[in-house]
């Protein structure tokens, strides 16, 4: 049967199980928008293409299914570069479809032409310029296959306008045909049996082990397996920024986040450990600090589905290439086999008591404000957390508010934390929260944002209001680019350069109202609870709370860039006890 390329595209997306597309039409992609009218796929019309990309990411974060963005050529494609790179850094499955000028106009500097595949080559896992309507179904199948298997990531299909309007014979490639068409793509999911045995032996012999858990555990949907491993071996867990929620924060073995703004215990256990069991983390510089000073006494087991992560930063003693879920389950089996054969786990008692000591002495803390003083951002987060319904999804932008969110929220369930970890994209939270709410309409979704971030992508609240996507937004507004301010205060002798944002404009309440949201302003601690109550009671439109918080507040602990983790800066009132971190 002959159909147009555009019809084939929409039918292919339906065949892939796509329920929602985030997009914005334009000249070259126009033909694809016509058959969309007759499709059951929901299309969410964004106000800026970057928003479509981050929405697709937020959707993928919480559902595990690939997010889909559909935009036109030229400037629309270049507006997708940031979300594509963001998804690439954080291994988010996402498929982006861009329109392109007709094949005979390619290379002529035609209106809204750009070299989309050239521009996005280094920010996608794979991309493809389709040159015939007939090739569209295969291109779609390949894009979804590549985006969702192995180490997930974004893919892009660039489709010239004439390929959308030309007729083609509908065909839907089989799984075998897809795999045969990609002879160079064979992700390995099963860990090497000998390495798994080796890992089990090291775990049983370690006196100071720690489970260093990264986003790969969430990607592999391995949270349950992780919990079984931790409980079986009684080993404590640290969860990186990308892995918050992979292990319940209220579990006695959970130590929270390590790294540049991790808590003192999570940082210290890695430094003092004799065995790092890295599950799906990548020794990011924000975790290791100065690599040569990182975890100096530790042997390393590194489980990662991407072989290129093995030895990229830290040479592992036991490298295991594979899917975290499969590998963790195999390690559990191997440990049980050892136990059955009489191997006894080394005594970790003194290690565990040291850990309890650190936790007691160095909890995350901040100085509560005295009556009449400015509102503390951490206090706002605690109140939001304590009033959030179970299963609330938290989405953050990038900066101080992101670190406080990760520090002060309690993540007890996987896929309840969405943020831009690798790329650090300011403006991520509003669109990502919209995507998350579309993916999980049954959940409350709070976006925690800074006033700097909010001003980058706030226009997507119009999308949320019009499309009836009732997200809630808490702006921790200190009228500064807060994290940069913190660095200038600490490392540039309080010479504040270009970080002060006006406290007068914009008027966030009016702005929210103008975009069809409810706007609430909070200046003092007493107003916090009623504002949150009000926000929680509204479910028919987005709500924005403008929390006016203390600009002097800094994120602690902190490991200054370029320093080793043992040089961690503690809050003043804990500095005196620093000796306790031995």
């Amino acid at each position, binding site marked *: 049967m002959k159909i147009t390329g555009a019809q084939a595209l929409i039918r292919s997306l339906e065949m892939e199980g796509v329920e929602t597309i985030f997009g914005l039409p334009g000249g070259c992609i126009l033909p694809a928008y016509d058959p969309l009218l007759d499709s059951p796929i929901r299309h969410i019309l964004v106000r800026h293409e970057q928003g479509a990309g981050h929405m697709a990411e937020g959707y993928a974060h919480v559902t595990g299914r690939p997010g889909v963005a559909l935009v036109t050529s030229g400037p629309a494609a270049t507006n997708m570069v940031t979300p594509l790179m963001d998804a690439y850094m954080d291994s988010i499955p996402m498929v982006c479809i861009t329109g392109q000028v007709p094949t005979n106009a390619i290379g002529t500097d035609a209106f809204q032409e750009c070299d989309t595949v050239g521009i996005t080559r280094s920010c996608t896992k794979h991309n493809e310029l389709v040159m015939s309507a007939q090739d569209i179904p295969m291109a779609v199948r390949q894009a979804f296959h590549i985006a969702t298997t192995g180490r997930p990531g974004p893919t892009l299909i660039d489709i010239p306008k004439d390929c959308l309007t030309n007729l083609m014979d509908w065909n839907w490639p089989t799984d075998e045909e897809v795999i045969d068409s990609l002879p*160079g793509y064979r992700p390995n999911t099963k860990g090497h049996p000998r390495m798994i045995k080796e890992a089990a032996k090291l775990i049983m012999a370690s006196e100071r082990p720690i489970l260093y858990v990264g986003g790969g555990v969430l990607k592999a949907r391995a949270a349950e397996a992780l919990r079984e491993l931790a409980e079986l071996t009684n080993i404590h867990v640290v969860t990186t920024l990308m892995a918050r929620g992979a292990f319940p924060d209220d579990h006695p073995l959970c130590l929270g986040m390590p790294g540049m703004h991790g808590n003192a215990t999570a940082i210290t256990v890695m430094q003092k450990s004799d065995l790092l069991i890295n599950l799906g983390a990548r020794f990011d510089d924000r975790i290791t600090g100065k690599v040569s000073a990182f975890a100096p006494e530790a042997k390393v087991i590194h489980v990662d589905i991407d*072989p290129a992560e093995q030895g990229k930063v830290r040479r592992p003693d036991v490298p295991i290439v594979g899917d975290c879920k499969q590998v963790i389950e195999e390690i559990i089996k191997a440990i049980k086999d050892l136990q059955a054969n009489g191997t006894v786990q080394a005594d970790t008692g003194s290690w565990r008591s040291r850990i309890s000591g650190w936790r007691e002495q160095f909890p995350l803390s901040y100085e509560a404000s005295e009556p009449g003083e400015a509102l503390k951002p951490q206090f706002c987060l605690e109140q939001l957390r304590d009033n959030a319904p179970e299963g609330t999804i938290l989405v953050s932008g990038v900066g101080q508010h992101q670190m406080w969110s990760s520090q002060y929220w309690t993540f007890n369930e996987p896929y309840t934390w969405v943020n831009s970890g690798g790329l650090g994209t300011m403006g991520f939270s509003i669109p990502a929260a919209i995507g998350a709410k579309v993916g999980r309409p049954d959940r409350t979704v709070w976006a925690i944002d800074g006033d700097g971030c909010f001003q980058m992508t706030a226009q997507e609240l119009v999308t949320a209001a019009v499309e009836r996507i009732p997200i809630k937004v808490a702006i921790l507004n200190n009228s500064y680019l807060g994290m940069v301010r913190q660095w200038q205060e600490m490392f540039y002798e309080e010479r504040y350069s270009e970080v002060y944002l006006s406290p007068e404009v914009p008027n966030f309440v009016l702005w929210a109202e103008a975009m069809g949201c409810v706007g609430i302003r909070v200046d003092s601690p007493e107003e916090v609870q009623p504002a949150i109550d009000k926000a929680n009671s509204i479910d028919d439109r987005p709500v924005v709370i403008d929390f006016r918080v203390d600009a002097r507040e800094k994120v602690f602990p902190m490991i200054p860039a370029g320093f080793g983790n043992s040089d961690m800066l503690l809050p003043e009132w804990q500095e005196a006890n620093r000796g306790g971190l031995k």
Partner: protein
Amino acid sequence: MSEFGSHHHILSVLVQNRPGVLARVAGLFARRGFNIFSLAVAPAEDEGFSRITIVVDVETTSLEQIVKQLFKLIEVVKISELDPGRSVERELLLATVRTTGDHRGQVVELTNIFEGKILAVGVDAITVSLDGHPEKLDDFEELLAGYGIVELQRTGRVALPKLDREARLRAVSTKSNQGKAG
């Protein structure tokens, strides 16, 4: 050309012959800060595939990381590292040399000694070609330099594993399920 030092390795990379594949490979090297010393590409024995011979400078990066990153490209099917002692290498050189006075005879003689070819003869210049082991080309180039090289072009080396008993193709990665990931 600078000498072929110990920091150089030869990678033979089998890729799907698709538009943009060379840009992907070259882009990866640029993006990750790896240095390409030379690069040659042409269709391979099987239809739909090309072989890229890349000589990489690994003074600053580990070869392992280069290979692993390269292997993540979807269109890369197989990567072999060729040990220079256990592979055959060839390169082609074209050079136009100034030949005033009695230099023409000397250049022709030199070319004959190296078993090269005379491609074109002008009033005061001559164009010669030589194919062979890259080190032989280095020697030839050095001797020609004394006469004054007007223009010179080398292809970069191509290589295949030796066929003798000793030939050991150190397959860094293969098309099978071993370690190919996305």
